[in-house]
């Protein structure tokens, strides 16, 4: 379809040029021609390691094969790209990327700020589970693509009697100095709330149990890092237990590192990631960015991409990877989700910064 449009527009353009000033008389034709002209490349922000590899295999490569548009992955941290996009939109500049692969929480912050394009018209959106579309917005400022679980990852050799049953294991003196969390505590706040004796009803109103539990964890001298750190630390024998996203633990295991994971009795935090397109792109680039996001929702792309990540996609009818079939950390049915801890995105948007700050305060104190 694109090729056809292009050739037509080209012919129109040539005719217009031949007719001299006729181009001035047909501005609409010119605009339309420009709108669908293919850009040389699309820039998609992604996370490194297993994340970008899966995206490339599942989405970007097939997209390039289909359209001929190269896809470049920008590995700037999601937190670092956000202010750049915000500044670009504020100043009316062209944003630095075409598609942002982002946590749903951060994506929602951008949506609230009004820097996201409306994705409502994308054909594949109809095929996705309802959870793919965020609530409470006019239009669709972002599309959630898959959910993921912050599991309790552990070194098998340290647990000869089987996987730990409770997050209390973090307080075991045996593991003092040998546990790890994300450096802002992301994925751990609700878990701490339950492990500390509180309930999900207390989020965000009464989170004292969570902070008490995190204070006890602090006494255990945890290492604090980001995705790639967990793999390194497991590999170097620095840690035995960590709270990290399943994909990291699975990637480490696939690389021959002695790592397994479990969903303890308190549950694990489940969350979603999505994609959105910043405002301010030239018309044709916006068009192809939307094509990219639409393609990411296709059966083919969802299957390959989310299998690579080891995460359940938000499109019905996907086949789970063999090693994760029936794994409680790979939720597919409503019962699976029962066991997990989910915090509404609106609550996260409003309070997560405070939780980060509070977590930081405890850990740096």
């Amino acid at each position: 379809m694109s090729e056809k449009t292009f050739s037509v527009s080209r012919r129109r353009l040539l005719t217009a040029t031949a007719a001299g000033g006729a181009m001035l008389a047909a501005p609409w034709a010119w605009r339309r021609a420009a709108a669908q002209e293919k850009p040389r490349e699309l820039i998609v922000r992604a996370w490194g390691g297993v994340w970008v590899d899966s995206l490339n295999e599942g989405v970007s490569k097939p997209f390039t094969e289909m359209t001929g548009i190269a896809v470049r992955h920008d590995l700037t941290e999601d937190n670092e790209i956000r202010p750049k996009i915000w500044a670009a939109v504020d100043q009316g500049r062209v944003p630095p990327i075409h598609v942002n692969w982002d946590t749903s929480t951060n994506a929602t912050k951008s949506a609230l700020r009004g820097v996201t394009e409306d994705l409502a018209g994308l054909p594949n959106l109809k095929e996705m589970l309802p959870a793919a579309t965020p609530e409470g917005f006019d239009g669709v400022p972002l599309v959630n693509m898959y959910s993921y679980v912050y599991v309790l990852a552990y070194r098998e050799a340290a647990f000869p009697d089987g996987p730990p049953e409770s997050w209390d294991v973090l307080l075991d003196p045996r593991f003092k100095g040998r546990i790890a969390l994300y450096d802002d505590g992301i994925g751990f706040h609700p878990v701490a709330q339950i492990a500390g004796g509180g309930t999900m009803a207390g989020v965000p109103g009464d989170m004292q149990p969570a902070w008490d539990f995190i204070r006890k964890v602090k006494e255990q001298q945890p290492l604090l890092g980001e995705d790639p750190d967990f793999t390194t630390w497991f590999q170097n024998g620095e840690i035995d237990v960590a709270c990290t996203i399943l994909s990291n633990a699975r990637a480490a295991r696939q690389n021959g590192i002695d790592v397994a994971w479990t969903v303890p009795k308190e549950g694990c935090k489940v969350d979603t990631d999505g994609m959105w397109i910043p405002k301010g792109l030239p018309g044709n680039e916006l068009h192809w960015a939307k094509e990219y996001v639409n393609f990411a929702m296709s059966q083919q792309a969802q299957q390959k991409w989310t299998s690579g990540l080891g995460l359940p996609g938000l499109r019905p009818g996907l086949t789970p990877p063999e090693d994760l079939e029936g794994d409680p950390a790979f939720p597919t049915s409503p019962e699976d989700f029962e066991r997990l801890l989910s915090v509404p995105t609106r609550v996260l948007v409003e309070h997560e910064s405070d939780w980060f700050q509070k977590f930081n305060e405890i850990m740096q104190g």
Partner: protein
Amino acid sequence: MASTIHDKGAGRPVGLRLLDLLEAARELLWPARMAPLTPWLFLLPAVLLTGLLAAGLIPLLDASLRPLDRATFRLAEDYALGNYATLATRPVYGVIALRTLMAGLIVTAATLALAFPYAWMMVRTQHAWLRKLLLVSLFLPFFIGQVVRAYGWLIILGKQGLLNALLDGLGLPPSSLAFTYTAVLIGLVQYMLPFAVLMLAPALTAVPVEVELASASLGARPFATFRHILLPMARPGIVAAGIVVFTLTLTDFAMPEIMGGGGNDFIASAVYDAFFQLGDAGLGAALGIGLTLVGSAVVGVILAFFGLGTLGYVEGREERS
């Protein structure tokens, strides 16, 4: 190429005619009557650079006075001191600031203590091979970036690192230095050492070896010579090296980030977290302003205490004797 130039054929060599051209261009841009201003012209880049830095502080100051609006994730339009209040009331910032300042003091003292004998040996040795060895061992890590070096330290200090392999071999209990404050300090001292040595070496070169010999012949033991002669005469270098090491430590990000295991953040980490984790540019700017103030205050106190002369501006003439 050459033929086209000869075609115009004034017979003068190409090089000279090129010079004529440059000369004419200079006359156009900077006429001869401006000559008295020429020395100031050379100052211009420095002034521009400093001015740019100072100008950069203005938007920072502006942002620091505008608290974040959580509903839109924009900074408020009206000025308020909310961000500074946050800094003052949240104890975590006091802890981080104190930790950073302490690191600045400890790292500066330790680096100077190690760098001084190193620089002295490098300057004074009679053996060319030893001087070369010292220089190479100084520069080799200099070319390896801070991040790579930090990871190198982790290989040494890690739970299954070289240090513990050594301790284990000696039948000693393992250490757990990696991801501690001590590890951050060790990494910083090693990172700062070349800077300090490079700033001390010229200062020590400026102290004639005869002065040390004279002191010894007048009855001073080596430590007395160090204390009464070398230390005061090398003071410009020591103060300059101290200021550089202190400010670099104060503003360091990578070392605490990588070697601190997440629990030993410095002010720069807090700035990063504010900007990117919390998305609160106002708070980050307030932290940045605070860091700038603390650093400037310390350097100001040092300069006020030792005088500008310590940088060699006033007493430089003395070296003539």
